[in-house]
């Protein structure tokens, strides 16, 4: 036995276990990264299917397909799956693949923990989706209180499956915290000689900061769900006014997690855009250090703006003013980032391959989400926007055309490095254009119905909102199905029968350590550390 182990030890260049065991027992950063990405992609289609149920019901006034009760389960699970099952795991998957390669390390610092943090996720989401399947089979109700699960709707009035939900959120939280610890340990300890902090690629920087945010706020989320658990099952009254508790306390705890969470879902996206834009502009990133400082200030500000989600709960005026001013300030570092990207493009020598298209789409449409975010920060106007479709439009611009577009950009950008094959450029462009047109048909009209007064999370609505809802539904179905183009393109690239082999550098303007190793990247990226000048 020991002879075998030694043999394995010596043969560490490109040896990997084969078959299903390679995936089940893997501690390799690339295999785990791949599993994270496939997990996220699968969840994208599940969460997307739920969104299509919502949009189908909202196609016209009246109830045509689902009961209000089931509609609420759809909005709840759609939100939970997209936030915790799609965006976050996709970024962790990208970090797993790219951080070691970008800093010149052979693997993540804590590979066994990496294994565990991935394998908690299928358990967590299995539990959540199981409650939905049971609901569809007529056995109880799935979580139906919105992804923000405000008390007392989720405590005193929550369905039995709420306890499943609580356990599921705990598992997701543990997974995220371990992932974050691993990324911090890797970045701190495994950088190649000469790679000082201020020489790290921006993607590594943004993930470094994101990991700290995760460690700071995931325990707060765990606290919120634990308080729910004891309120529901052990007779406490944290959130129950009848027992001397405070339902608004729940919102403070939730959003103290929830607002930094928003930046957890966008900072790595900023990092991706900061890698892609310089590559295709064939020009260095403009204002590297201001990018790092802007990211840090956004992370700091994200801790002192949480109550801007709660302006209608009736806070003292002074509190409202503080949170309004603090929220408005976020516009400054966010603006710096956008200006830097535009300046990077300025006088570059640009080409527009699919990753660049998605990055440009990101800058345009994320900015629209940024502007509506600024509008939402203004308290008197927020009283009119709050809990309407205007908010739904805002956060979908930030999370779909923002975070998800950045993830798409990253996938097209690094797929040739991962597989050794070029993806189908024509198919990629079709994917971009169909998605971009349909996503705007989907989300832009939501601004209008929101401003006209349509509340969010309602299964039926007055006639005055009919036209724009119809438009949004058409956009939703086109956008939803056009994601199959990406799936087809990825599968085609992995199989590699009809594709061109990728070079080591892949892109003409690519700079950085990940482009110095062969494509596809070897099982252990750097067995001897490179030196960075």
């Amino acid at each position, binding site marked *: 036995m020991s002879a075998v182990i030694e043999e394995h030890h010596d043969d560490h260049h490109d040896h990997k276990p084969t078959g299903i065991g390679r995936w089940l027992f893997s501690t390799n950063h690339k295999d785990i990264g791949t599993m994270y990405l496939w997990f996220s992609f699968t969840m994208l289609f599940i969460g997307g299917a739920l969104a299509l149920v919502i949009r189908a019901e909202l196609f016209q*006034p*009246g*109830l*045509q397909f689902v*009961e*209000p009760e089931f509609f*609420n389960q759809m909005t709840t699970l759609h939100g939970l799956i997209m936030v915790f099952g799609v965006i976050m795991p996709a970024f962790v998957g990208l970090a797993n693949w790219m951080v070691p390669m970008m800093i010149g390390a052979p693997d993540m610092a804590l590979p066994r923990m990496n294994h565990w943090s991935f394998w908690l996720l299928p358990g967590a989401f299995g539990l959540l989706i199981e409650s939905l399947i049971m609901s569809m089979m*007529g*056995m109880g*109700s799935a979580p*139906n209180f919105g992804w923000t699960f405000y008390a*007392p*709707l989720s405590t005193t009035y929550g369905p039995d499956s709420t306890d499943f939900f609580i356990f599921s959120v705990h598992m997701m939280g543990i997974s995220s915290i371990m992932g974050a610890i691993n990324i911090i340990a890797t970045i701190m300890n495994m950088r190649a000689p000469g790679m000082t902090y201020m020489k790290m690629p921006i993607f590594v920087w943004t993930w470094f900061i994101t990991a700290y945010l995760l460690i700071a706020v995931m325990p707060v989320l765990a606290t919120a769900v634990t308080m729910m658990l004891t309120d529901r099952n052990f007779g406490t009254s944290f959130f129950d006014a009848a027992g001397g*508790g*405070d*339902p*608004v306390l729940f919102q403070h705890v939730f959003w103290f997690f929830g607002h930094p969470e928003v930046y957890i879902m966008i900072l790595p996206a900023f990092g991706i855009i900061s890698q892609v834009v310089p590559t295709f502009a064939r*020009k260095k990133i403009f204002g*590297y250090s*201001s990018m790092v400082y802007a990211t840090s200030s956004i992370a700091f500000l994200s801790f002192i703006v949480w109550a801007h989600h709660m302006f*209608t*709960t*009736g806070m003292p005026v002074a509190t*409202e*003013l503080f949170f*309004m001013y603090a929220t*408005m300030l976020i*516009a400054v570092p966010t*603006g710096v980032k956008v200006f830097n990207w*535009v*300046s990077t*493009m*300025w*006088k*570059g*020598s640009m*080409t*527009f391959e699919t990753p660049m298209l998605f990055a440009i789409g990101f*800058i345009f449409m994320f*900015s629209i989400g940024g502007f509506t975010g*600024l*509008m939402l920060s203004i308290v*008197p*106007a927020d009283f*009119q926007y709050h*809990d309407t479709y205007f908010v739904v439009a805002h956060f979908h611009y930030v999370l779909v055309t923002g975070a998800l577009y950045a993830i798409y950009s990253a996938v097209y950008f690094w797929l040739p490095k991962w597989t050794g094959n070029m993806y189908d450029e024509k198919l990629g462009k079709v994917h971009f254009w169909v998605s971009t047109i349909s996503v705007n048909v989907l989300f832009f*009209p939501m601004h*209008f119905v929101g401003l*006209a*007064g349509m*509340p969010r999370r309602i*299964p*039926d609505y*007055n*006639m*005055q*909102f009919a*036209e*724009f809802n119809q*438009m949004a539904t058409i956009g939703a179905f086109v956008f939803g199905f056009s994601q199959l183009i990406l799936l087809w393109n990825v599968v085609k690239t992995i199989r590699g029968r009809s594709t061109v082999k990728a070079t080591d550098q892949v892109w003409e303007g690519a700079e950085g350590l990940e482009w110095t190793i062969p494509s596809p990247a070897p099982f252990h990226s750097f067995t001897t550390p490179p030196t960075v000048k």
Partner: protein
Amino acid sequence: MRAAIRVAGFISLILSSGQSLAEYQLDMRPGVTSFSQGAYEIHTLVMWISVVIAIVVFGAMTYAIINHRKSKGHKPASFDDNLKLEILWTIVPFIILGFMAVPATKVLLDMEDVSNSDMSIKVTAYQWKWHYDYLGEDISFFSNITTPDSLSVDTSCNVEMDENYLLDVDNRVVVPVNKKIRLLFTSNDVIHAWWIPAFGVKKDAIPGFINESWFKTDKPGVYRGQCAELCGTNHGFMPIVVEVKSEEDYAAWVGIQKAAAAEAAASAGKTWTMDELMAHGEKVYATNCAACHQTSGEGIPNVFPGLKGTPIVTGDIAKHIEIVVKGVPGTAMQAFGGQLNDADIAALVTYERNAWENNTGDIVQPSDIKAAR
């Protein structure tokens, strides 16, 4: 630019819908109170500042995309920072934000000043209706949605919809014009939010807490809104209707309310016939119970129990009355004892025991309810 947005919206509308174009709205409406006006103005200001910034930034980006491309032989420049520029685009946004913050603060301070009100109404939210209590006036009532059968799935799409579909209630809140009306919000169960867009008032109704807001308008009329905080199954079906009347009309309305209350008190003592009880009971059931237990009495499987042929309503009468009066703690079944009078509950219990082929033949009188409380 506004014209451009409207044109774009209109074109997309025509593209998306061959049906008749109902009236639609692209922007926030100005409103009829000082702070819905204020909110509208600050919304417009911030939106146009955003549009101008967007034109500058997106314009620069588009220029670069068109001109600085490799296919046109553009060679990359080598600059990667510019301290002066970076300081400039950090400081200028601060100044612009200041221009937004000043008017926003003014409007907010006006909104939060509830002093010197002329009258107060306490608004209590229930799953899924509103209760209004005119403080010091001895007027209080529930306000329920009236759109018929809005809660059952109908794939034929034949639901009748008028322009106030889902936005009509049985009892409107009536207030006088030109008076500062103070609103006190609380909730009986989960968090709801009371919202009338035309007033710019959106406040959460939170169990165990009291929130305040106010409005004052010089324009009589009917104003509509909806619950704005997810509050359970029928969150989409708890509209709000406020009718602002002239001083005299308001006084007349108050008179009618008081007369009706006196009449209800008188009828509580009399003995009702089966037909009277069934007729009244059906109404009480429709506004208070049908949302969960459904008009058919069949409930929603695994969410709300059915009442058709179940021992709850065909068995022990005393137990049945107790459930209606005291509710079932820890479930969505509320205690209706505080919401309905003896005659309502008597009629309701009688109705439930005899409707949907339950046919127990039991008759419950208001005096029975009084005794059971």
